[in-house]
């Protein structure tokens, strides 16, 4: 019907929004502001059926513009946020929280704290119960800021301690912050979610005050409770804690095993491999090999000399002992089609040699074992190394030449 073409309020504002969207995506803040000025009168219409109403749009868009626009000042930003808080009761706490984030980004810690306290004390009939989650978050962030204050006091205390001064007032204050922080942080991490920063801070507090059992419990919950979303960091934190506590290798290894399963390219894989290599158990050593091969599958590890040295060490050790060559074979099987181009091309040989001699050494060793002494990489690097009369390269050449038949068995 012809009514489809009628330009009415709704269509006009929809068009306006799409212009704003384009402007935002292209970071044209002035243009976005221009169209937003025309959009704001949507507030005077009732959009209660829409999923996202104009007040939320204006809040989000306005925040972006004011945050990025060159002429905008923090004062105007704060003023705007205050207005947005009055626009929707259902959103009040969310707006408060986001405002706090912006204040923190701007370094205004005290203002952020004030806003958090204010928001925490907000009551609005049944809304208070409905927005329970937001309240918890606000309390958690306030706890976080309390932790920061605690940290500061701790630092002061330690410095004074060195000087020999015992400052009771500071200590009292510090304990006060601890109590405030602990209460709120403990609450939030009970709720399933990703709370890395809260967990870290809470554990730090617990450790300082000697509550190691509680800390361990918290970290175990965080890492192993299936209700919580899978989070590699949880395992990292647990591992680091256990390490600090001087736990046995066994528990350390079990903590890292899951991390390897979830994020094979994690930087802790080097530690993991190192631990596993040293293990007396055969299975663990094999796992170690698996771990280091898996890590080197990722582009980000290509130039990691340490990783290569781990691999090289283990490979060398296996070759020398002549035991468990099948481990290498197994690992190499799925990689022999693409690792040569990925790691051991002639181009890389040249580049590695130029940029990082140690890296090229380790890689050459691995290449020589896996691909034989005639492979491009080994040939180039060992030739260069011998030409430069670097001793270890001569040793390397000898070693690989001696064990050359191995690669046949591996690639077999």
């Amino acid at each position, binding site marked *: 019907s*012809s*009514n489809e*073409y*009628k*330009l*009415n*309020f709704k269509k*006009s504002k929809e*068009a*306006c929004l*799409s*212009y704003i969207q384009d402007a935002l995506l292209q970071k044209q*803040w*002035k*243009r976005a*502001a*221009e*169209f*937003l*000025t*025309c959009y*704001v*009168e949507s*507030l*005077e*219409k*009732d*959009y*209660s*059926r829409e999923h996202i109403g104009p007040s939320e749009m*204006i809040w989000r868009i*306005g925040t972006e*513009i*004011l945050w990025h*626009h060159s*002429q*905008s000042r923090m004062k*105007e930003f704060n*003023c*705007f946020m205050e*207005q947005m808080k*009055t*626009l929707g009761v259902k959103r009040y706490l969310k707006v408060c929280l986001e405002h706090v984030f912006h204040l923190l980004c701007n370094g205004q810690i005290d203002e952020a704290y004030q806003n958090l306290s204010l928001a925490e004390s907000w009551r609005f009939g049944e809304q208070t119960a409905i927005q329970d989650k937001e309240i918890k978050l606000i309390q958690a962030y306030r706890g976080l800021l309390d932790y920061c204050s605690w940290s500061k006091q701790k630092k002061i205390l330690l410095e004074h301690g060195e000087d020999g001064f015992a400052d009771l007032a500071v200590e009292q204050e510090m304990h006060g912050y601890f109590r405030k922080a602990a209460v709120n942080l403990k609450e939030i991490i009970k709720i399933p979610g990703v709370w890395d920063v809260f967990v870290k801070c809470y554990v730090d507090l617990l450790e300082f005050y000697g509550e190691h059992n509680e800390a361990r419990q918290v970290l175990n919950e965080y890492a192993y409770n299936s209700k919580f979303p899978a989070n590699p960091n949880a395992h990292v934190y647990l591992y680091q804690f256990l390490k600090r506590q001087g736990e046995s290798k066994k528990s350390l290894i079990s903590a890292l095993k899951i991390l390897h399963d979830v994020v094979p390219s994690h930087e802790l894989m080097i530690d993991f491999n190192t631990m596993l290599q040293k293990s007396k158990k055969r299975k663990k050593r094999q796992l170690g090999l698996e771990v280091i091969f898996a890590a080197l599958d990722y582009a980000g590890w290509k130039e990691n000399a340490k990783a290569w040295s781990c691999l090289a060490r283990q490979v060398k050790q296996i070759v020398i002992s002549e035991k468990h060559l099948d481990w290498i074979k197994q690992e190499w099987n799925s990689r022999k089609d693409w690792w040569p181009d990925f790691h051991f091309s002639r181009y890389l040989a040249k580049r590695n040699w130029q940029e990082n001699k140690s890296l090229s050494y380790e890689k050459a060793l691995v290449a020589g074992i896996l691909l034989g002494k005639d492979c491009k990489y080994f040939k180039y690097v060992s030739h260069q190394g011998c030409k430069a009369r670097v001793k270890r390269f001569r040793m390397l050449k000898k070693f690989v030449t001696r064990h050359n038949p191995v690669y046949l068995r591996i690639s077999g």
Partner: protein
Amino acid sequence: RDFNERCAQCSEVNWGLTDGGRFYCRSCHNVTERTREVVNTDFITNSRVQTISKGLKKQGKNDGGCEWYICEGFQLVLKKQVEALEALGVCPQMKDEILCNFWRCYLQKSKQAYCKRPAGETVKALSVCESSTDVDSDPERPSLLHLLSLSESEGDLQTDCSFASSVSKASESTSVYSGSVDGSLYLMKNQKEKLRMTMPMTLSFCYLALLWVREPITLSELLRFVVEGHIPYMNVFQHFPEKMKLCGLDHKIFCVESWPLYEEVFNKMHELAAFLDLPRFPDITESCFLHPDMLCMKYLMEANLPDELHNWTCRVVKKIGIGEVDFLTLMPGNKSTRKVKYDVLAAAVIVVVLKLLFLLDDHYEWLLSEFAEERNKNNTEVCMFYSGGPYFEFKKWYEVVKHSLDVEQKKLDEEKAKYLWRCEKPLFYSVKNKSKVLKRRQMVVNLQNQFGKLSGSVQRAEKPNPSSFQLSWSEENTDGSCFHGHSLKGVLQEKCGLLTTMNPDYWLCTVKLCNEKLCGHLAHYREVEFPQSYHFVLGLFSFLLRIQPSYIHDEVCMIEHRLFNKKLCKKLKYNTVLRK
């Protein structure tokens, strides 16, 4: 003023009105027995109430408001509109003589004034309800929600519901349905026979008057001026006097939130003309602006097409008889004659002429263009001077016009997205939500200021002066972007002493016309089914007239069928190309 008799005593014609509504002679103060039967266009409190409804005794509300009727509101709107038209240069007779009389005639025929009893009903006091029992116990009283839904104007369902619920909730205290006396009555009655007044209809009134006076302004131009803000429409109610309080249902009637469509205004205009029982309108002759020959000339200029094309448009107009006085002149109530859309018709004629000369099948026109280009290259300037301008190259024309069109269209699209629909005078449904509305308005103004400052140098410019031409091309431009003086020689040839087109073919937009009364259209336009060039040309005029291309397409079909009537009767296959 309208009373022209000589005074019995002093023979002067200088009349005034007493408070009692009688005429008295200003020269000698002789009071006549003649009572005033016509109300003048100015708004008068209370005397109006006396003349119309005897039953109503309530005084105005406490807040200084007065009682007012919906038709008085519309009267004010019309007054504002016609004053704006006057400011644009329309002759003053339109206001005082034509529109005024049309309006009075309307009031009389719809029995809202100038008659003994308003539609045989007393105006129920739906405006102010003091006690709750009246509201709920009356079984005949329609629900507010029902009334709201009867209104043609759009609004949000949500606002209506919230208003309705807020009213029913507040039934313990005063509930206000409308500020006007007959707001709810207005929406309630089945007005089909009586042609209920709406905001779009005010434009129908204006155009009817303009047509009567044969002003050089087309309906599409009028609507464009409305959108550009030269003629009050969108928020006219903010100019109502303070005493006329608007609230509740009044908003449904006076606040529109969409621009009226050409079709809407056009159809209502014809309905109105019939309703008012108007006689045959003044003739539209060849010298009239609205005659296709004149309009074609204007549109050819605006479309940057060669002046020579005008010969061809005149030929087509003559051949199919659409330049005849009887065809063009409006005869209200005559159902057999086709209602003429002068602007669309002229545009369609040009489209047909372009099809005749260039075929516009996405192939032939480019061929002709190449041919012209060759000729132009080879000709010297002197040659061109004598032969009357360079050969018209379709390709060049297309590039130039498309570029300008794209620029203007982009501007227009941005304008549409930047419309400000609200005005300073806030709308509130009831006294209850007044404070909330005012607070919101304040916040909107604050935000507008805050972000307006960040908009950079681009502040909303003053309304551009109203102009009849949206695209203009100057012959003085040396870059060759003006095609008015170009020659059509490249596409014409002489045959038997007559100048005819080189193009021997023509394709019909449609072989069979639809029944307009059944489906509302003569044909159905789907872009993908037609050549790009045709679509472009339709798009050009669609932009100029601010209407959908399908309307022009309809007229094109109509013209083609008249033009090739004989050949069509020979029952050709669908979509074959015709040989002229």
